[in-house]
């Protein structure tokens, strides 16, 4: 809603002019809205803040009554314990391996299929396109039973490869690539064809490089999605050694009862990489979300 109009008005003769003139002097409603937004933002950020702050408190301070917005006794001991006494290192590694694998494979698959469907003529083209659109409708959680069966047949249960498998279904990524390739003006293709380029050269030297941004955005969001996945890794993996970090942190049980600060510390460590990736690549993440939402609409 524009506040600019109010300051631009000269003495108007239109009806409602008195109200507008009043608003020009002090945009009370606007100010309230802004303050309310800020207040809500603070409220929204609080749980995360509270969680983080708690991880820097020693456990006995955590369980004391009263609200301490900043630790009386700032400490790293929770993190220390978590890093040394849990399998967090292995979980990090597992998450890293599976997330990177998913990202790379999905991008290769999606760029290839997106290009083929967009630019090439071949029998079955339309069939595959429909299959991609159809895969939207089928919810992945509905496939957990048969995914488990298939991967069991392949002896991939409780392996990292098994965790990766079902995550490779990424219709949105294919669709985004296809739409992007569709939008490249055909002049470029024709010029390159006249110059003698093959389709592979077209894909790798023109279509993909012309907008690296898309690939980057998709890579980041695929990575974050793979890192954060819970349901499938939870089902596919039973030994702690093979867990990814999102699942692993729910398996931390202390023999001495609930250790709040430590549980939170391990959670914060789990969230740290994706949070950092987001903060660095904010624009790309935003772009990727808009793209994928555009698809679903």
């Amino acid at each position, binding site marked *: 809603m524009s506040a600019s109009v109010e300051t631009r008005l000269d003495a108007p003769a239109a009806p409602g002019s008195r109200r507008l003139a009043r608003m020009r002097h002090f945009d009370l409603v606007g100010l309230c809205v802004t303050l309310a937004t800020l207040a809500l933002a603070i409220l929204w950020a609080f749980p995360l803040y*509270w969680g983080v702050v708690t991880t820097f408190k020693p456990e006995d301070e955590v369980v004391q009554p009263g609200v301490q917005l900043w630790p009386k006794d700032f400490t790293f001991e929770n993190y220390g314990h978590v890093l040394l006494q849990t399998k967090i290192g292995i979980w990090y590694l597992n998450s890293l391996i599976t997330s990177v694998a998913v990202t790379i494979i999905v991008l290769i698959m999606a760029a290839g299929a997106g290009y083929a469907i967009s630019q090439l003529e071949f029998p079955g083209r339309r069939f595959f396109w429909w299959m991609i659109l159809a895969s939207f409708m089928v*919810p992945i959680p509905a496939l*957990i039973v048969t995914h488990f069966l298939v991967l069991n047949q392949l002896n991939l249960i409780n392996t990292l490869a098994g965790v990766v498998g079902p995550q490779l279904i990424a219709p949105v990524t294919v669709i985004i690539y296809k739409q992007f390739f569709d939008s490249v003006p055909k002049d470029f293709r024709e010029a390159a064809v006249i110059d003698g380029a093959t389709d592979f050269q077209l894909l790798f030297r023109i279509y993909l490089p012309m907008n690296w941004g898309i690939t980057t955005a998709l890579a980041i969001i695929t990575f974050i999605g793979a890192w954060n996945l819970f349901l499938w890794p939870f089902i596919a993996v039973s030994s702690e050694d093979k867990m990814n970090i999102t699942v692993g*942190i729910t398996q931390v049980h202390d023999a001495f009862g609930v250790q709040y600060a430590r549980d939170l510390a391990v959670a914060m460590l789990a969230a740290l990489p994706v*949070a950092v990736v987001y903060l660095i690549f904010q624009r790309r993440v935003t772009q990727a*979300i808009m793209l994928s939402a555009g698809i679903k609409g």
Partner: protein
Amino acid sequence: MDRREALSRGLGTMLRSKRSEYVTAAVLMAPFVVIYGVLFAYPTIKMVQLSFTNAPLIGPGKWAGLDNFWRLASDRLFSVAIWNTIYFVILSVIPSTLLALVVALGVNRLKGWMQSVVLAAFFLPYILPVSVVFRIWGWMLDKDFGIAQDAIAPFNNGQHLSIFRTIPLFMPAVALVTIWWLLGFNVLLFIAGLRKISSEIYEAASLDGASRWAQFRRITWPLIWPVTVLVFTIQLILQLKIFDQVYLFAQGGRVDATMVMVQYIFKQAFQMNRGGLASAASLVLFLLIVVLSVLEFQLLRARGAR
């Protein structure tokens, strides 16, 4: 391929060597075909097939016709799961959509770094893995030491309340957590939609003497309606598949009372070893999602066209 299709695909009827094109296409499509075949097409067909058998999780089973579906129909737990899922969707999708619009309206007024910071405050939770969200809110609402208890106690005779063990409060609490978690996504979409509305329209309305509320009702709301429908649809489909938070928060409590559909599938498959039954439930979930989302989309679109 006729001219219209060729032109719409941006291709001329260009001279191509058909054979080399097929080979190229085959190479480029191969990863996709393999992955989709093994991990989508086959599992989907298998799911449908299994739902008509009495198979355990691993291993073959005998044909059972519609038995599984009758069992589902008569299984109280299944109806509870369906109801809980729908209940959860109502609790989370509608408030989440509306609140996101309100927040987007507020955030859109801000400028520069303040807008970036505020947006990040709303969006950062979306980036967190569900288990981290679980830990944060489990801690906030913890029965013994959670900070929220200080706000709750006055309403509860000065006593702490175990939110997630109080069955009527379970779903609303999980919905609240989910809204906190996912709002940023919706806000982002709304902001993109709001930005597309030219400010000139508002200026013209102001000059015509329209109040803020009138501007919202007559300009913003109708013009943002497609985005609202989009956000609502995405959230609807997403939340019908809910599992993670519900499972995590229900651990150690009366899991059955607050069960949701995917959880039901999970239980039947991986805890009760009933592969066929779980597949039948999966099929039902699939159909439910398709029907509900198509219905919802048509209804809302029709309303918007009015």
